[in-house]
């Protein structure tokens, strides 16, 4: 029996034992909140603290989540028994039903089953991929790299305009040949397409990688493996706004919500390439700014107070400048200087000058 499966059986047996003794069934779930996340100065990553919360079946406030967590555990065990993988969406549909004779649904929305799966990871101490649950494919990569995935050799340089789409589980991938000096991860798929069309990765001997918006686990793990196994520096290209900063923060330090898997995700050496406040001055983008809304300002304040940014003078300077502008800037603002400005001037200049934030 595989380890994850053994752990799930144990979980069921522990609960059954308690119930037969007349002890009320409960689960101990580590708290996934800022209050239970610490920044480890030594590893430079986020770590989950020791705070855990009881989730009790006979409690009106807990019962729904309790049932949801066990429901996804059951689904995961079935998947492991069959040796099949399911997506988050699949799991949602496997759990979604109405309890007979009531109007109670086990889950109403996918966010509920997603959260239950994250809780299950914490309870079992196995990642969802190990529990045979995968996220959706999301993201593209291109570069002079050849990999092997399930017996197929794939050349990242010969996949046309779409690039290789990154699966949610990249654990089994083998790197056959990697000829690159660095990796650029960008927040915007549109920017990736620009660089891909301009064959930036070919001209500058690098790998370009994107996912739409917040980075998925598969992409983070892929970046981490390129960084660790091939010693490639990772540069992050994001919007000049609080959300862009947080994408960088997640890549570098780990995320608050998934602090328990920081070890397999975080890239402490990642650098923030842009857009910075200095870029706005240097490249004359001040006419292409977007006014900040109240939520932007609130989010900026939150981020500036995170332990891992609090004592970073360079970053605090960026936050301060953004507050002074009262405005944010998108990567695409660079297009105002010409459609190929980013690939021909901005990126080469910045990388050459090592003009980034740590």
């Amino acid at each position: 029996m595989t380890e994850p499966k053994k752990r799930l059986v144990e979980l069921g047996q522990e609960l059954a034992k308690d119930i037969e003794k007349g002890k009320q069934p409960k689960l101990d779930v580590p708290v996934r909140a800022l209050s239970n996340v610490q920044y480890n100065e030594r590893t430079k990553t986020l770590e989950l603290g020791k705070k855990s919360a009881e989730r009790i079946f006979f409690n009106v406030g807990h019962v729904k989540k309790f049932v949801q967590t066990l429901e996804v555990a059951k689904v995961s065990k079935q998947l492991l028994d069959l040796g099949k993988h399911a997506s988050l969406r699949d799991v949602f549909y496997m759990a979604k039903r109405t309890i007979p004779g009531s109007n109670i649904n086990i889950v109403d929305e996918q966010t509920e089953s997603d959260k239950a799966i994250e809780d299950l990871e914490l309870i079992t101490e196995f990642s969802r991929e190990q529990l045979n649950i995968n996220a959706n494919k999301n993201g593209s990569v291109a570069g002079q790299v050849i990999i092997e995935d399930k017996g197929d050799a794939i050349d990242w340089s010969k996949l046309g305009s779409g690039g290789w789409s990154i699966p949610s589980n990249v654990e089994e991938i083998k790197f056959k040949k990697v000829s690159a000096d660095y990796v650029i991860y960008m927040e915007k798929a549109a920017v990736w397409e620009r660089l891909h069309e301009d064959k930036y990765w070919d001209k500058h001997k690098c790998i370009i990688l994107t996912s739409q918006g917040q980075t998925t686990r598969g992409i983070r793990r892929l970046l981490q493996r390129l960084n660790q196994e091939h010693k490639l520096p990772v540069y992050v290209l994001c919007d000049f706004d609080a959300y862009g900063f947080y994408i960088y923060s997640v890549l570098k330090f780990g995320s608050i919500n998934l602090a328990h898997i920081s070890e397999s995700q975080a890239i402490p050496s990642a650098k923030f390439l842009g857009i910075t406040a200095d870029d706005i001055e240097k490249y004359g983008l001040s006419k292409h700014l977007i006014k900040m809304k109240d939520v932007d300002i609130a989010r900026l304040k939150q981020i500036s107070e995170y332990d891992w940014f609090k004592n970073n003078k360079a970053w605090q300077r960026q936050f301060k400048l953004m507050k002074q502008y009262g405005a944010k800037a998108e990567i695409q603002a660079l297009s105002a200087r010409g459609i190929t400005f980013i690939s021909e001037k901005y990126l080469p200049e910045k990388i050459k000058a090592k003009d980034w934030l740590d």
Partner: protein
Amino acid sequence: MAEKPIALKLAEKQREVSVAEFFERNRHLLGFDNKRKALLTVVKEAVDNSLDACEEARILPEISIEIIEMGPDRFRIIVEDNGPGIVRKNIPNVFARLLYGSKFHSMKQSRGQQGIGISAAVLYAQLTTGRPARIKSRIDPNHPAHYFELHLNTQRNEPEILKDEEVQWKKEHGTRIELDIEATYQKGDQSVDAYVKGTAIVNPHATLIYTTPKAEQLIFARAIEKLPKEPQEIKPHPYGVELGIMLKMIKATESRTMQSFLTNEFSRVGPQTAKEICEKAGFACNEKPGNLQLPHVEKLMQAIKDTKIIAPPTDCIVPIGEQLLEKGLKKEVAAEFYATVTRSPEVYRGIPFVIEVGLAYGGQQPGDEPARLMRFANRVPLLYQQSACAATKSVIQTNWKPYGLSQSSGSLPVGPLTVAVHLASVWPPFTSEAKEAIAHYPEIVKEMKLALQECGRQLGSYVNKKRRVGLERERVTIFEKYIPEVADSIASLAGITKSRIQAALAEMLAKNKEFIASNTAKIEADESDEPENKIKMTVKEEE
């Protein structure tokens, strides 16, 4: 123009109209506007008189009401009481002469006021069927019972005696009236049935035996063997007297000086106050009342307004009382929760009054209909003109939502509720002679609202508690629903049979039902920083 002035021509047609003739034409003013209402009005006038008479004589009332259907639209009404009876010589005037009565001139709480009611009923019977009123009355076992047949002469407003004889009657004392009228009988909120029921609620000391036209006999037994306290008669309070009445009083008084007039004829006016009023009005204390002219009286009215006079005594009012009103409601309205409030006496226009409110909630009452409003004045149910009544206005203007009922603006609350509002006063202000609705004096509306709110708060805490209990029950149900699901998950993880787990969980739920129901731990938020609510449960002893 050779013609004589029109006024002379008109003058030929002008002559006195007798009160009786006036009411013959305007019978709607007395509550005889339609056949259905006529039945109610006749019963009501007779029963009100009987109750007043019994209470005045300190006799526990026992009244029988019988309605017999004689033919299409024709009914015989027989009302018999165990009251003090009426002396022979007064019988014709009491029953067959309008505006003859003992109550008009007294400031005392009673059901009747003007002495119109029963004679109007007799007149109505005469007009619609031509049959005389049949009266039987006896004042004590040593006197014979007298039997009269009476008509009312409408031109002269005088009784016409058709028969006057001594008869045998096994009753020791009491009065019985029998009238044949044109009417229709219909059940519902404005029926005789509703009137009798309402009367039973606010007169828990009376026994009513009611035989309906369908020959069903309903007995409303008394809930208490004690008469209400006897209301005291009071003199008018100066603030409540209008110019016309003041003129009449001055003309009629036997007092020789204004000071003694004021002290003798009014309540709460002592020699000092009288002196102050005289001074302010600009005449001497020993001024003869007879010397006063209209301008002086106008000054007198102003002087009264400007003088501080303490409020009238309130012992003249006899409210039902919170306990008895509750008893009355419990007796006639099947509900699960009752609340009653009797307010302290207040004064409108110099006339004291007391407001009482009773609520009956739940039971078999429909929950999706507007609340039933029962209005009472001096222990008499008011069945018509609901929308014109101060009580209705007060109920509508009270916000019932905090008390757990739904209510759209400008209407009665919706819910399984009966609201009883009672006004007790020496002179309840009605909007019309038919005594169907209470006039909107701000003082009265204010008191009603305060009483409603007071009762409403009691109701609110009951309704909320009930809702809480309902929620607790719902909570237990949630677990009942979830148990098979969670048992299935655990069984499939552990690779054991589901039934054992399910049974063990069900047992646990049954044992700890109360605890689980009362456990109101709040829904935990995933990203919340607060420690979760820890709960403890009784645990089976370890084997």
